[in-house]
């Protein structure tokens, strides 16, 4: 997953909106992600896809785990899903916010009330 700024989608201040880009090597997985969104899932519950990109040619780098940045050519050698930028995932939240096993109120919020009561 990479973070980018979308120059074609500006926010109210005219700044490029931040997006997350999921790069994939395998076409079948890429297609499954797209097909799954065709089942009528509500974007309140499932991350929507803003745009998709097919590879433009060239072989994707053999390994890019831990790579911070890709060149335009490298990035374009992958299948790509562009999605809205999230604050953080639950894994990071558990590691950084340190509520797991400590703050059961926060756990309850995460599990049940968050979408109706707000954060």
């Amino acid at each position: 997953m990479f973070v980018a700024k979308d120059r074609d989608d500006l926010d109210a201040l005219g700044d490029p909106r931040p997006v997350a880009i999921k790069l994939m090597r395998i076409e079948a997985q890429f297609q499954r992600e797209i097909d799954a969104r065709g089942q009528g899932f509500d974007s309140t519950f499932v991350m929507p896809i803003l745009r998709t990109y097919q590879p433009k040619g060239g072989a994707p780098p053999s390994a890019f785990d831990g790579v911070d940045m890709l060149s335009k050519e490298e990035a374009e050698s992958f299948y790509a899903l562009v999605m809205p930028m999230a604050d953080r995932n639950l894994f990071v939240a558990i590691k950084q916010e340190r509520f797991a096993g400590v703050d059961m109120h926060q756990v309850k919020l995460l599990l049940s009330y968050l979408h109706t009561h707000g954060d």
Partner: protein
Amino acid sequence: MQAAAHMHSKGYIHGDIKPLNAVRIDGRMIFIDLDATAKIGVDTVGFKSSSAYVPPEAIFVDFVLGIAVVRSQKHREQSGLVYELVLAHPSFDVWSLGCVFYQLCSGVSLFKEVQDDNLSSDVNDPDSLWELAKWSDEVKTRKLSTIADPQARNLVSQMLMKDPAQRPSVERVLGHPFLTGRAVTRMVGEEAEFDVFLSYRAASDSSHVERLYNLLTASGLKVWWDKKCLKPGENWKEGFCGGLVNSRTFVCLLSRGAINHPSIAWQNFGNLKEDSRCDNVLLEHRLALELKGLGLVEKVMGMYL
């Protein structure tokens, strides 16, 4: 939880629920990574799931060959091994959510993964696929003892039932006292206070049920009978429901007089119509069947005189 409930209502499971695949956006937790999504009852699961979050039934083990893997079509084709695949079912996601919930409540993961949320296949590793496949009561009890809150522990215990049929639906998880804050008489897995709940029609069977009560209590059983157990001033509906929830066995007593009552129309089977009034015995019987489905009542018995 709501995101899983939403996907299940659309006929799909996520298939790879784990902390990395839930992100916070605008204050809500939503799912990402839908490439393991599977249609309930149609697609098989396991091809893309992270083994630290899959349920025991998704693991194939062969002690002779020394193999422990997540069941999948791809592995079956590649290995040439013959084993059953797992059809997509909401209980698969409920286990994964149980693993996440366990982590949130205890501060540690249910199984220690070796890499990328996947478990070791080393038979000597206490956090391996072999241990997950076994998922004994002993291991479960030990792991759940790290959760201090009893209601949270009860909920996680239900979500991590080895038998997928015994895991609650996501809707039922959302209705659990831990999440709703509702007062609760008894949670699934807790001991019942009474052995027997007596249901009967007072107009015809009071003397029969008194005799039954005396016989049962004389034999050492704890019996819920409204005449003895309903407290003065207590809301009778709440009292009856509380008594039933707190009983192991439901006994419905019906005499010939109870179904052929000369003057009470709805207690005379000869007069029953579709719109006949429902009486307490039928309502209690129905509640008992629902509670049996939840694992609170063990037996529903009829006694006909």
